[in-house]
C-alpha cells in the first residue's frame, strides 16, 4: 500500500520519524520492565533467582501491560497498533 511513500515525504523526515518511533519502543520496553519488576519481584532480595511465582507474575504482567497499551492506543484513535 505504501510503496511510493518515500517520494512524498523527504528523507530527513522519514529518518526523524523512525528515530522517534524507536525511542518510543525503547521507552515502552523500559517502563514495562520497571513497572513489572515493581509489581512482581519481592523487594527483600533473599535470593538471586526469580522464583516460580515471580516468573508467572512477570509473564502475566507483560501480557496485561501490552493489552493496556493497545487499549489506550485505540482510545487515542491512532488507528495503528502501538508497535
Amino acid at each position, binding site marked *: 500500500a505504501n510503496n511510493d511513500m518515500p517520494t512524498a515525504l523527504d528523507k530527513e523526515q522519514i529518518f526523524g520519524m523512525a528515530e522517534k518511533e524507536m*525511542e*518510543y519502543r525503547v*521507552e515502552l520496553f523500559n517502563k514495562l520492565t520497571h513497572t513489572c519488576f515493581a*509489581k512482581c519481584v519481592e523487594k527483600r532480595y533473599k535470593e538471586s533467582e526469580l522464583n516460580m511465582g515471580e516468573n508467572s507474575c512477570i509473564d*502475566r504482567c507483560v*501480557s496485561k501491560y501490552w493489552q493496556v497499551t493497545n*487499549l489506550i492506543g485505540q482510545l487515542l484513535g491512532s488507528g495503528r497498533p502501538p508497535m
Partner: protein
Amino acid sequence: MDKSMLGDLGSLPPEDQARMSKMIDQLQIRDSLRMYNALVERCFSDCVESFRRKTLDEQEETCVRRCAEKFLKHSLRVGLRFAELNQGAATPD
C-alpha cells in the same frame, strides 16, 4: 501540547521560520509518544493490581478507559490554564 506555547515565530526570516517549525514538529512528535507511554504506565499502575490471569478483566478494562479519558480531559484543561498564565506573563519582544 499546543504548538503556540512553544514560541512566536513571526519575527524570524522565512528560512529560519521553516527550520524552527520543523524542530517544533519533531519535538511534538516525540512529546506525544512520550505522553502515550506515560499515560499507559500511569493507568496500568493505578488499575492493574492482580496477576492471576494473563488478560485484563472487565473491571480493569473499565478502569483503564476511565483513567485515560480523565487524564486526557485533565491534560486539556491544564493546557488552557497554562496558556492563560503564559500569556499574562509574556513580555512583548
